[in-house]
């Protein structure tokens, strides 16, 4: 399981930050979209497009396995850019799940310290400041 409570908590934290900095586009889907795009940008620089697509496909598979409803995720076939088009009904929950799985995969492969270091490239440190984010909220 790569999207345990700690990863979901971290995903929520990132979403909360993006929702707060959303410039009016305050829906959960928009916030999760921004988190996802930041992750994509940050990770693509680091692992390359193909590397990110591999992680993404694994995360999507894990989301499908975990979701009880109809297939909530569709992957685009763009050569470089992969598009995710989420069912509206599931978008909020699935978005968090997808992000949590991506983060979980990163933590599994790179460990907690390095994962947080990479995330700090995309989000300011205060997002992770109230204790160890990967270990859940302290408050």
């Amino acid at each position, binding site marked *: 399981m790569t999207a345990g409570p700690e990863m979901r908590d971290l995903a929520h934290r990132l979403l909360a930050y993006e929702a707060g900095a959303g410039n009016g586009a305050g829906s959960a889907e928009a916030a999760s979209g921004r988190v996802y795009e930041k992750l994509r940008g940050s990770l693509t620089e680091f692992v*390359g497009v*193909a590397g990110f697509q591999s992680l993404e496909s694994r995360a999507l598979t894990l989301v499908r396995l975990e979701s009880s409803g109809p297939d909530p995720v569709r992957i685009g076939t763009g050569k470089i850019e992969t598009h995710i088009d989420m069912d509206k009904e599931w978008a909020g929950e699935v978005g968090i799940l997808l992000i949590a799985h991506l983060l979980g995969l990163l933590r599994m492969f*790179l460990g907690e310290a*390095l994962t947080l270091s990479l995330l700090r490239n995309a989000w300011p440190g205060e997002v992770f400041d109230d204790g160890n984010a990967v270990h859940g909220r302290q408050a």
Partner: protein
Amino acid sequence: MSTQDKVKINKLPTGVPGLDEIVGGGLPEFSFNIIAGAPGSGKTTLAHQFVFANATPERPALYFTVLGESAIKMLRYQQQYTFFDPAMLPGSIRFINLSQVVLEKDLGAVLEQVTREVEKANPAVVVVDSFRTMVRKPEGDMDLQSFIQRMALFLASWQATTFLIGEYAEEELRDNPIFTVADGLFWLRQTAERNSIVRKLQIIKLRGQDSVPGLHTFRITNAGVQAFSRTFGLTGHTKTPPTDRRLSFGIAELDAMLGGGVREGDSVLVAGSSGTGKSVLATQFIAEGIRQGEPGIVAVFEERPQAYAERAASLGLDLETPQKDGKLTILYLRPLDLSVDETMHSILDAVQKIGAKRLVIDSLAGFEMALSPGFRADFRESLYRMIFALTGIGVTIVSTVEVDESFTEFPFSTYSISFLCDDILRLRYVSIDGQLRKIMVVIKMRGGNHAKDIREYEITSKGVVILGKRLTNFQGLISGIPVHSVAATEEPSLDTGTEHKG
């Protein structure tokens, strides 16, 4: 500013223990370097160590990954090394993947992206890993030669120290434009020798720097690459001038045979067959040193330190207390895959740590067996360097060596290393009056007086005890089968020892 002033080239720490000395004090700043070698030889790890040692938030490192090992897996494994500090990412160290542009575009586009990233980040260090995968790609509108030259020129102008990492075979060394452009060329070799792996590093070229030539052993541990210079880290050390001071074995009769003891800074070889008391003598030498306030090191290869100390205790020699007091270190050097250089570094570290004046190597045969088979071929040459280096810093060495007992010859060593030793003490069995007894003789003392006498000795609960005076009335003692030169019924007569010029 003066017309006489030459440019000073700053030297950057390599982050690899031992490598700074090999490259002449550090890596030249702004140099354009290549790390080449076979897969698994430690190229990436070496580059990472340099990056982690030099990157700062103000002048970060850009680490470009190309085709080959996935970045995630690379960091998954690399972070296991103790030098890897995750907190340095991404502020001080940024990993940038160039796979897509390499796959889809040409070398010109690769250069453009590298240029863009360098201009944006202002890095002090740039690494391209693996550069080889990039140049295997068919060339587009930019040929390889100009690509290399433009990249080297650009990165140097931007004050970046650069490493290109590539898998190369040795035969590719010639006529390769990449190697011509490079300021530094580091070649890592890894060969299997019987059941062990031998890793060696060579600085094939390094512009503007006085690097140490030759092949240097290196090892990869959880601390990363560690290099062992052929000069044992003693470059620049002033050789300790020889003194006339004599060091005692703690056996008055033996000291007298040696003209007053072993000359300080000498290398002494104690040769004899099994059971003749070589280790006992060596232990007495080290114990006497401690008694006189001279810290010592014992390098053992054939038994554990505890067993060594217990054996010494059975002779009434306390090696436990000086170990606790930091006056003695018994080094047990892990057998089977050592290089002489690694052994030397362990010994030198111990010598410097406690300020040792005496060193016992017990035994050379065990030392050789502890080496990787690939290093055994160089044993004599390595031993020469080791003894020269240690005695050069004023350490007095007693080495034991086992020789096959022969009744037709009188060998000093199976290694033909007697020329390495200043002094040789030979122990052997002789058959006298139906008993197998022991004799010792000083074969040589370089530059000193020593006795010619052949003395009988015993190993007692107090260690080696020399009996009476020199053996007379025998001929052919060193053959092991002497004959009485007087009536066979007479006891061997004894005479006072005499000294002769060595």
